[in-house]
């Protein structure tokens, strides 16, 4: 590539979205489509591999620029959604290994060097991911929801004194809380059991919390499963209705995703199925 240097934005750098095998229609299908900052996508090939790349300005994607983007939720969201849109589009054409957010090289030559160096590992990962999708499974415990379902408790003593009624109410709340979490734990175990034969691999993500975790209740399980495409429906079906009899417990399935959570080799002793 010719080095384009814009005095305002600095030299262009090569942002890598995903890696795939050479010989797929990926490059032709996506070439020219807009990536980050509207920069057109291109395929950078080396050996058996192809990287999906677009040019980004070093002013925004160097260490300082990235730091600034990370500290601004709106910019982070644009970055994440654009990266994801490219990976999703690529994923429709070929098995891809998604890169982590903000994988940036100085130029395409460095990208080729990386592909050369990592070829055995990436080829093995791509072979493993071939034909598979990632499905997310989240389990939530929501004691408040359980209360609204079973609020007509059996022994509400309407004649009790205010103090006694308060204590009864507190006790009922605590019991409800315990029951809901226990039920959620049981549902989580049941999820694992039901999909054990349907998934090739399993990764545990940190339960979601904080401002971005907007779903009701507390997220107690946030897992990802690698499932063959032909088994995706069976996987969903296996979990349908699982929490119907557990008030305050909710199971959510997300995806299919590109195999983000399985793009790294399993760490020895870590991230393995429970």
């Amino acid at each position, binding site marked *: 590539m010719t080095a384009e240097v814009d005095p305002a934005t600095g030299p262009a*750098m090569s942002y*890598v979205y995903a890696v795939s095998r050479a010989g797929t229609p990926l490059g032709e299908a996506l070439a020219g489509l807009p990536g980050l900052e509207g920069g057109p996508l291109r395929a950078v090939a080396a050996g058996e591999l192809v990287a999906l790349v677009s040019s980004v300005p070093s002013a925004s994607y160097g*260490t300082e620029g990235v*730091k600034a983007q*990370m500290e601004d*939720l709106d910019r*982070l969201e644009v970055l*994440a*959604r654009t990266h*994801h849109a490219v990976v999703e589009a690529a994923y429709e054409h070929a098995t891809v*290994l*998604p*890169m*982590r*957010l903000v*994988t*940036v090289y*100085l130029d395409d030559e460095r990208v080729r060097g*990386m592909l050369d*160096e990592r070829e055995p590992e990436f080829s093995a990962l791509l072979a493993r991911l071939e034909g598979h999708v*990632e499905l*997310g499974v989240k389990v939530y415990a*929501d004691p*408040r*929801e359980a*209360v*609204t*379902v079973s609020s007509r408790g059996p022994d509400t003593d309407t004649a009790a004194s205010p103090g006694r009624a308060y204590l009864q109410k507190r006790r009922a709340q605590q019991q409800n809380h315990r029951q809901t979490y226990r039920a959620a734990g049981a549902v989580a175990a049941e999820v694992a059991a039901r999909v054990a034969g349907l998934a090739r691999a399993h990764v545990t*993500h*940190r339960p*979601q*919390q*904080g*401002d*971005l*975790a*907007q779903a*009701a*209740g507390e997220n107690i399980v946030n897992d*990802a499963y690698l499932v063959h*495409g032909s088994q995706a*429906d069976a996987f*969903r079906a296996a979990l*349908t*209705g699982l*929490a*119907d009899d557990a*008030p305050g*417990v*909710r*199971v*959510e*399935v*997300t995806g*299919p*995703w590109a195999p*983000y*959570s399985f*793009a*790294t080799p399993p760490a020895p002793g870590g991230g393995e199925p429970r």
Partner: protein
Amino acid sequence: MNDELGAAMPGAGFAEPRAGLSAAPDDSVESLAGRQVALIDLLDRLLNGGAVLTGDLVLSVADVDLVHINLRAVIRSITSEEPAPW
């Protein structure tokens, strides 16, 4: 207030009850356009997943690690109001 939440979030079942999703490729364009994945689900994958390259990266290895550390700090600050135990 709780009633509102309860009404918005059914107590049990799937958030996306699209049983035959992957069996209906014809709908995929529409369904992709029609739904937007939750940012937090996306960040789980883009900041914790994805292939991590620490080889011959632009921003020398140390800088890359730095970037990733920053990402973790950010996601932690985004997803947790208090210092997290991990």
